[in-house]
């Protein structure tokens, strides 16, 4: 009886992750979909509910924490991952999820962002990129494109934006992925992979803000353009896209080229085969359109750009501590108090 009860408790449903708080995002906001996908995959990740922890910064995106019926902290602007790293170091058993926006992560929190990825805490980092500061009502962000007209750039932004994938790779991130609010299935797959990955898993989620930057990513979800503008990566599979999967990308040295399958004797085997563990190619993917040959337009990559495990920070920390303890033993408090030299009066 007892056993059966416990089993029933373990069987969670998405509803179990819905907190009682009223969700206050604007109607049509892409954040709803992200919340939905997270709540959908969580029941069968095999983690006891009480072991999930969400840490968010500040922004529309960061309100996420209040809507998940898990442990959570809605913190201060830009610092979520710094706090999350402390949670993870203190208790490596927890499944820690960082929720942040493009401004939160790449502007005010830029320093923590690069260092957390470099140090590789075992956490999942979801950055909702709407290429705008939404909570503060529409100023340009570090991912807003050049020329963008916003409330603080009435004549257009003069800044070169960050490329989040490339920035994460440059910071030595172990896992870098991209997905889209309007592709629930794809997002669920990427989130699962992020969860399974041991180490810092950075996921850029392109998210529509219908109020301040509507349609920024529609090209990747609209059925008329999606197949031409987006390419969905699969490990070990050739880079194929197009309405009828008739196009592919091959690498000519370091330059990507769009080719037509079946033309000029080109078959799938000639194409660029995606290898998640290849760092060089991951950089090329992150800059695909930028580095394309002149006059050529490339689709944007989605999926796991790069994934290569290395031991996470907190595990190395514990390992080192255990090794030292095994070697020299715990120092008794009396010895710590006494130091190296004492005298008695």
């Amino acid at each position, binding site marked *: 009886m007892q056993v059966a009860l416990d089993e029933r408790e373990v069987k969670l449903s998405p509803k179990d992750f819905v907190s009682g708080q009223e969700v206050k995002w604007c109607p049509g906001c892409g954040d709803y979909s992200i919340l939905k996908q997270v709540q959908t995959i969580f029941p069968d990740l095999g983690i*006891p509910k009480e072991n999930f922890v969400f840490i968010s910064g500040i922004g529309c995106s960061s309100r996420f924490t209040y809507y998940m019926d898990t442990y959570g902290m809605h913190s201060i602007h830009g610092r979520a991952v710094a706090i999350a790293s*402390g949670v993870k170091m203190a208790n490596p058993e927890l499944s820690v999820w960082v929720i942040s926006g493009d401004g939160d992560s790449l502007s005010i929190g830029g320093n923590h962002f690069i260092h957390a990825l470099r140090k590789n805490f075992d956490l999942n980092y979801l950055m909702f990129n709407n290429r705008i500061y939404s909570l503060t009502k529409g100023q340009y962000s570090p991912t807003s494109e050049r020329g963008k007209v916003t409330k603080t750039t009435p004549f257009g932004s003069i800044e070169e934006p960050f490329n989040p994938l490339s920035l994460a790779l440059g910071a030595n991130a172990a896992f870098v992925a991209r997905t889209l609010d309007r592709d629930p299935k794809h997002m669920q797959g990427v989130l699962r992979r992020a969860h399974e990955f041991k180490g810092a898993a950075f996921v850029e989620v392109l998210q529509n803000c219908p109020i301040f930057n509507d349609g920024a990513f529609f090209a990747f979800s609209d059925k008329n353009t999606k197949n031409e503008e987006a390419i969905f990566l699969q490990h070990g599979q050739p880079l194929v896209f197009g309405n009828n999967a008739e196009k592919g990308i091959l690498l000519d040295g370091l330059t990507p080229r769009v080719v037509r399958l079946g033309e000029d004797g080109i078959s799938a085997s000639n194409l660029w085969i995606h290898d998640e563990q290849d760092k060089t190619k991951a950089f090329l993917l992150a800059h695909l359109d930028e580095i394309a040959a002149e006059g050529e337009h490339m689709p944007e990559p989605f999926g796991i750009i790069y994934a290569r495990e290395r031991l996470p920070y907190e595990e190395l920390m514990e390992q080192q501590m255990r090794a030292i303890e095994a070697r020299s033993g715990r120092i008794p408090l009396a010895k710590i108090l006494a130091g190296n030299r004492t005298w008695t009066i």
Partner: protein
Amino acid sequence: MSAHLDTSHPTPVIEAESVVVRFSGDSGDGMQLTGIQFSDTTALLGNDLSTFPDYPSEIRAPGGTIAGVSGFQVNFGSREVFTPGDAYDVLVAMNAAALKVELPRLKPGGILIANTAGFDRRSLELAQYPDGVNPLEDGSLDGFTLHKIDISKLTKEALTDSGLSAKEVERSKNMFVLGLLFWLFDKSTEPSIQFLREKFAKHPELAEANVRVIQSGWNYGENAEIFPSRYRVRPATLPAGTYRSITGNQAIAIGLITAAERSGLPLFLGSYPITPATDILQELSRYKANGVKTFQAEDEIAGICAAIGAAYAGSLAATTTSGPGMALKTEAAGLATMLELPLVIVNVQRGGPSTGLPTKTEQADLLMAMYGRHGEAPLPVLAAASPSDCFSMAYEACRLAVEHMTPVVLLSDGYIANGAEPWRIPSEESLQPIRFEFLHQPNGPDGELRPYHRDERGVRPWIKPGTKGLEHRIGGLEKQSETGNVSYEALNHEIMVRQRAEKVERIAQNIPPATLDSGADKAHVLVLGWGSTYGSIKTAVRELLSEGCDVAHVHLRYLNPFPANLGALLAGYEQILVPEMNTGQLLQLIRAKYLVPAVGFSKIQGQPFTTGELKNRILEMLNS
């Protein structure tokens, strides 16, 4: 430094009550190591003492310059010693620049040991003596007991065929000074020899060379017959117990570990290096075997944020820094106040504002500790009074943080952080227990969770993620009383602001009352101090009391909240003098809270008060 003569020894030995020695040289001359070794031995042999390392912020300022002078001062005595002393009985000057800087504080008739090799033309020029002037030769030092010794040459001679490079030989000359001073003060060379053999265990040839130089310094004193007498400072009569020497920074590190061991909570430190607080991070990094997690973050913000995360997850969390880092931590300190999580924030103050005087001391961050957060964000503020008091106050900061679920600021400063004194090691049992428990069950009346339900002290429960059934959200947004849910309700905000303040106020019931350090509970003048001015004030007031003055001394270790009895205590005095190494910050707090006409006495020179300065000011007040 004077008393009776003992002529039984070849060189007569004079008994002295206390002696101030100042070692001074170029940054590269190793004076800090010499001073520490000399002090450690002195302490080991039973003297009470107080040290003052005084070094430039440049790692290696240009050699031989005035900017590059690095000093180490020790005052040791057969009676209690509370300060490094105002003026020197003995000055060791390794070069002309050191003499130039230090001479004004050498007592008339004091012993001056000058390394003649540091007084060549180039050195004199770098020390900005006029062309052709050499103070060692022109009779200008006639008022002192001058000993001119070519320490560099004697070191070289001691190390002929040692196989050491010329540079290594030159670097050993501080050991000659050490040996000579041990001889002069009739102290054993053994502890230092043992130290060197341990330090250079992997390079026995270096250890032996240094030992040889120490011995040749000793022998030089014994044989050269240039010193008419030696000095002996008998062991002090300190309370019985086992002692060690401790600096303020070491004491904070050990205080934090002790609190962790006593509470059973794992210790987490998130920190970013900054003078003069870095030692605490370095010291704590050595205790990995005890489960101490130290995290050198990418900046001070990440340091405190990681600590907040660790506190949330159930660790005893701390962050350590100095002024500039404290400024960076303010937003996160506000978050911790809002979340009501335990956290110890240590600020080892230095001269400010901005980069200010990184290696010099100041007490100018008190008001920042009190008010340096936006919104109404009160938190407890403690201050350590001496190097060893840093242990007690670090322990107290942990105790109050955990028992009251609040961030606590602990103030130290560069002076006590680096200064050392003997410390009677407390027994583990003498430490107050740290009481807390994690919440494991819903605490609401209907079996639901109330993360911001307060107990009779106004304290909310500590709930670790991972606790089954207690999932909940906390955050920086204002929350509803009891439930912790986000609330923008007007009245609720006022209630929460007041509840958070009241919680801190009630800590006054969990701290000791203010007590008199010296003097009576009614007097003409009360000297009210806080932090590192303790030693100078104590010495000044004790001396005045022995001269029959009507004066008393109270030293505050709890600055927010003030001890509950402070107002009543202050009422016993006609006048209150508040000496501070700032323009009058405690003064403002005291005047505002107790409406007493306290008067300030400021020194803002990056240097501690001298006993003389304080005595003069107190006398002025007594006579007014």
